[in-house]
């Protein structure tokens, strides 16, 4: 995973609440066994509407997506994150995210920033009025900026630490091998095994 420190650029406003993962990437594309190449299928159904925001060329190259409540609800498919990544988006700002989706974003190095609804609305307004509006997310200081406008956000310190260093989850956990083995040694033998 690449380290994430700062995401700066245009933001595309996805002005809907409860955007579910079936919209982000329809199930038929989950048959692929690759991890990349999902961008062209992202929001497939909604993209058929010429007025859909992702069809607006002014937002081409946006690296931030602004969203409403409960973005990423529904399925655990990480393909949704790969699809968003495939659109070139590196960070999402919303009042709330669905839990599994947020975990998956973190795994893929996509930054999720939660701000109060009125702050997200303000950013949506700016990005809608002027698609060239630049938004900056600085992970170190936990700040979101748009020109003179500025807010701070919360992030789990452990996640921040790992994002900033681009640390790989699995190799980190493998260092705890002795702890896992010690846990296994005292684990109840009554728990089932899937074999035989």
């Amino acid at each position, binding site marked *: 995973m690449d380290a994430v420190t700062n995401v700066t650029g245009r933001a595309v406003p996805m002005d809907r609440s*409860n955007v*579910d993962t079936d919209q982000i990437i329809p*199930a038929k594309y*989950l048959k692929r066994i690759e991890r990349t190449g999902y961008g062209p299928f992202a929001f497939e159904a909604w993209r058929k509407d010429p007025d859909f925001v992702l069809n607006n060329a002014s937002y081409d190259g946006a690296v931030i997506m602004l969203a409403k409540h409960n973005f990423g609800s529904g399925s655990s498919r990480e393909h949704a994150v790969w699809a968003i990544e495939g659109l070139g988006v590196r960070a999402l700002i919303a009042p709330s995210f669905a839990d*599994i989706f947020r975990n998956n974003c973190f795994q893929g190095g996509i930054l999720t920033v939660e701000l109060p609804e009125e702050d997200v609305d303000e950013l949506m307004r700016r990005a809608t009025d002027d698609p060239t509006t630049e938004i900056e997310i600085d992970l170190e200081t936990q700040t979101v900026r748009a020109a003179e406008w500025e807010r701070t956000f919360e992030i789990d310190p452990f*996640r921040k630490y790992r994002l900033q260093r681009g640390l790989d989850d*699995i190799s980190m*956990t493998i260092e705890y091998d002795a*702890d896992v083995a010690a846990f296994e040694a005292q684990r109840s033998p009554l728990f089932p095994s*899937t074999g035989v």
Partner: protein
Amino acid sequence: MTGPKTLAEKIWEAHVVDSPLADAARREALGDEAAGGVPTDLLYIDLHLVHEVTSPQAFEGLRLAGNSVRRPDLTLATIDHNVPTIGRDLPNPDPLSAQQIDVMRRNAEEFGIPLYDVFDMRQGIVHVIGPEQGLTQPGMTIVCGDSHTSTHGAFGALAFGIGTSEVEHVLATQTMRQVRPRTMSVEVTGELGPGVMAKDVILAIINEIGVDGGVGHVIEYRGEVIRNLSLEGRMTVCNMSIEGGARAGLVAPDETTFAYMQGRRHVPQGEDWDRALEYWRSLPTDQGATFDKEVVLDGANIPPFVTWGTNPGQSVTVNDAIPHPDSFDEPTKREAAARALEYQALEAGTPIRDIPIDRVFLGSCTNGRIEDLRSAASVIQGKRVADGVNAMVVPGSGLVKMQAEQEGLDQVFLDAGFEWRDAGCSMCLGMNPDILAPGERCASTSNRNFEGRQGPGGRTHLVSPAMAAAAAIAGHFVDVREVI
């Protein structure tokens, strides 16, 4: 933490391998930046269920990093999401699905993971087969690359849906890094009326708390109504926890749980059973334990529910009409309702009973178990599916199918004009050939009514199995209480 604890807290704490932020030396090693905040614990996983759709990239990741599967004996794979439900002995009509199924087989073999393959009687939907085989037990941590893993919570297990990267992490380490969840109590008091099922209870709960009401929380379902539900009914309730945004949902184990488990293949026997029972009985939430959030519903006031919109919270009772978007106070709900009505091609004010349907889908990990099939069969016995309606039953597993056939339910369905299929996810998510055509309207016992969920342009209404069966006969929604 000492003092009274909730069920979820007990299970969580018993599985913490390492809590880096709780330990000064580790905090040092991780750097000061990682200090403070909510602990992101390393949690041991007792059972990892794997299926063909969310695992190929995880196995590929293992191979690239040169990792093996740490505990194949705590891992079980099956093929459910895109397997066809008819003509399994023929070549798969979809080359991509065929490839994915083949990759699952090869990965299971290469990494030594037990697999319930397509022609194995035990094959079925991941969340149906775990409980069926006795692999789901109280006090366990269970994960699967699927959001409805919460189903297993019905046994008093802590069960989470995870993404593919986390699948890889669990395969490699048998652990998972997770932020400690908050706790929420949903209590359903009183008694359910006749014809009202577990599905109606969970639809009522989601209607009450909203589709994001449980975000960040593990829900414990409590109260008389939950206690009086069968274990399968509890699975239906826990299954849809994610539809209320919750990270997991569970029910304290009790005599109903133990009776359901006894004698199943992977459940402890003899003296081990007694020892296990002792542990299981220590799990329920202690007197005086507190929850971060509490909700109470009166079970006597829950009628059969029908969703009208494009998320599972957009529902009304069967005797209501489609609400007008203006009836919602919050602007986002108003907009969402207007969009949903447009997608669903419905007019505000239309009585639910006047909505005609084209298809009926009876199945999924929410309502594809034997009791679900029995309740639907009892409604249709001796009747015929309405003209122009295509109705289909997809049992949750090969064993559910066999049991139903032993009880003669297949004949009841076939006589009524239903199709009787092989086990799998089928039209719950439309990854196999079972999909709605654009514009088709379906009464479905599954869990999601998202736009296009059952096929692009398809329109879904979530209902209980009894309500779906009654709708199949009438050709439109009816109050099942009037026909039983």
